C-alpha cells in the first residue's frame, strides 16, 4: 500500500473515531469510563510497524494527539508529547523483544498496551488509580485485544505475516 494512502486512511480513521468518541460512545460508558478507540488504533499502528521504523508511529502520534485533544478537550502539546514518548518506548521494548522472535504475539501486545494506557491516562488526567480506573483499563484492553486480532487477520491477508 502506498504510504500516502496509508496516512490518508489513518487520518480519516482518527477523525471518524474522534467524532464517535466525543459524541456517540459516551452513551455506552461503563461506570463513566468510555473506550478510547483513538488510543487503541494509535497503539496498533505503532505495534504493527517494524521496530526500526518510526514514520507511521510518529504520524499516528501527531494525528491521534490532534484529534484526541480536539474531541477530549485537552491541550495539543500535552497529548502529542505523551504519545510520542509512548512511540519511542514501545519501539525500544519491541526491538529488544523481537530479537528472538519475528512475530506479533498477544503476550507482547496486551501488557504493553495496558502499560501505555495507564501511563497515558495518569499523565493526562492526574488521578489515583481506583476501581473505576481499573474498570476503564480492562474495558479498553478487551476492545484492544479484539482490534488486535482483527488487525492481525487483515495484515496476514494483505502481507502474509
Amino acid at each position, binding site marked *: 500500500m502506498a504510504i500516502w494512502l496509508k496516512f490518508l486512511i489513518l487520518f480519516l480513521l482518527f477523525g471518524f473515531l474522534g467524532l464517535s468518541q*466525543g*459524541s456517540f*460512545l*459516551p452513551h455506552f460508558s461503563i461506570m463513566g469510563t*468510555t473506550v478510547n478507540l483513538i488510543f487503541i488504533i494509535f497503539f496498533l499502528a505503532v505495534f504493527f510497524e517494524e521496530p526500526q521504523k518510526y514514520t507511521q508511529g510518529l504520524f499516528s502520534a501527531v494525528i491521534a494527539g490532534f484529534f484526541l485533544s480536539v474531541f477530549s478537550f485537552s491541550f495539543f502539546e500535552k497529548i502529542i508529547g505523551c504519545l510520542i514518548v509512548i512511540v519511542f518506548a514501545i519501539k525500544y521494548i519491541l526491538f529488544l523483544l523481537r530479537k528472538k522472535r519475528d512475530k506479533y504475539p498477544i503476550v507482547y501486545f496486551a501488557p504493553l498496551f495496558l502499560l501505555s494506557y495507564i501511563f497515558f491516562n495518569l499523565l493526562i488526567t492526574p488521578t489515583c488509580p481506583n476501581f473505576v480506573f481499573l474498570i*476503564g483499563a480492562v474495558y479498553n484492553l478487551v476492545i484492544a485485544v479484539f482490534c488486535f486480532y482483527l488487525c492481525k487477520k487483515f495484515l496476514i491477508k494483505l502481507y502474509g505475516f
Partner: protein
Amino acid sequence: MNVFLTKRNAMLPKILIKVIVFLMFIGFLVLFQEQFKNFFYSISEPLQKTFWKAGNSASNFLGSVFYLNDIIEENEELTIKNRELLEEVAVLQQTKIENQALKDIIGNGQDSQNKEYKLILAETIGIDGCQGYLLINRGSDNGILENMPVINAQKVLVGKIFEVYKNFSKVMLISNKNSVLDIKIQKDDTLSFPIYGVVRGDSNLIAFLDLIPIDSEIKNNDILITSSLDGTFPKDILVGKITEVNKDDLKPFQTAKIQLFFNLNQANKLFIISDYKLK
C-alpha cells in the same frame, strides 16, 4: 568504518530538518490552539449532533431492553410519589393564594424570589466523561462568559462554563476532578439548622460529599442543593442525593457517596444562566 561515519554524517542534517519542521508544526498547533479547535468544532458540529442523537437513541433503546424490570419498579414508585406530590401541590396552591392575599394587603405584591434568570439555550455536541468536560454549541458570540452556571431542563446543576471559544464553550461538569461546589442539605424539618458541605468531583461522572461536620445528622436520600456561598451558582438548584454516609468518629468531618441528578440522557439541551453575577 569511514563509509559508515560519512553516511551517518550525511543523514544528520536531514534528521535535524525533519525535527525542526516537526517542532514548528507542533508550535503552530499550540499557538493557534483556540482557532484550530473552534474551526474543527464548526465543521464537525452537524456530524457531532447526529452522532450524539444516534448515541442517545441507541442507549435509550438498549437501556429499555436491559433494564425493563427496573423501569417497571421505578414506574410504580414514581406513580405513588406523583400522587403524594399532587396532594402536596394542592395544599401549596392554597397556601400560595393565602400568601398572595396577605402580600396584597401589605402592599408588597412583587416577589423578588420568583424572578427568573436569563437563560441561553445550548445544545450538547460532545462529552469527555472521564475528564468531566462537555462541549456546547454556544460561545463568546452568544454572550457566554467563563464561570456562568449551566443547568438542564429539569433545573438540575450540570456545571459551569470553563473555556469559551468563538462559537463553542467547554463546560466543566460538577463531576470534574477540579470541581468543588458549596451545597446545602435540604431537610424536611425547616426549624433545624441548615447543614452545609461541599461536593467534590471524582471524574467519570461521579462526585462525593465532603466537609460535613461530624455531629450533623445526614442520611440516605437527603437532597443536596446549591448554597450560593461561593457566588458562582445561584442557590436552591438541585445537585443530587446521598446514597451512602461514611462516618468516622476519628475524623472531624463526614463524607458521603452521592448520586448526581445530572444524567447524560438529559444533557441534549442545556441552559446557561447568563445574568446571575449581574443580579
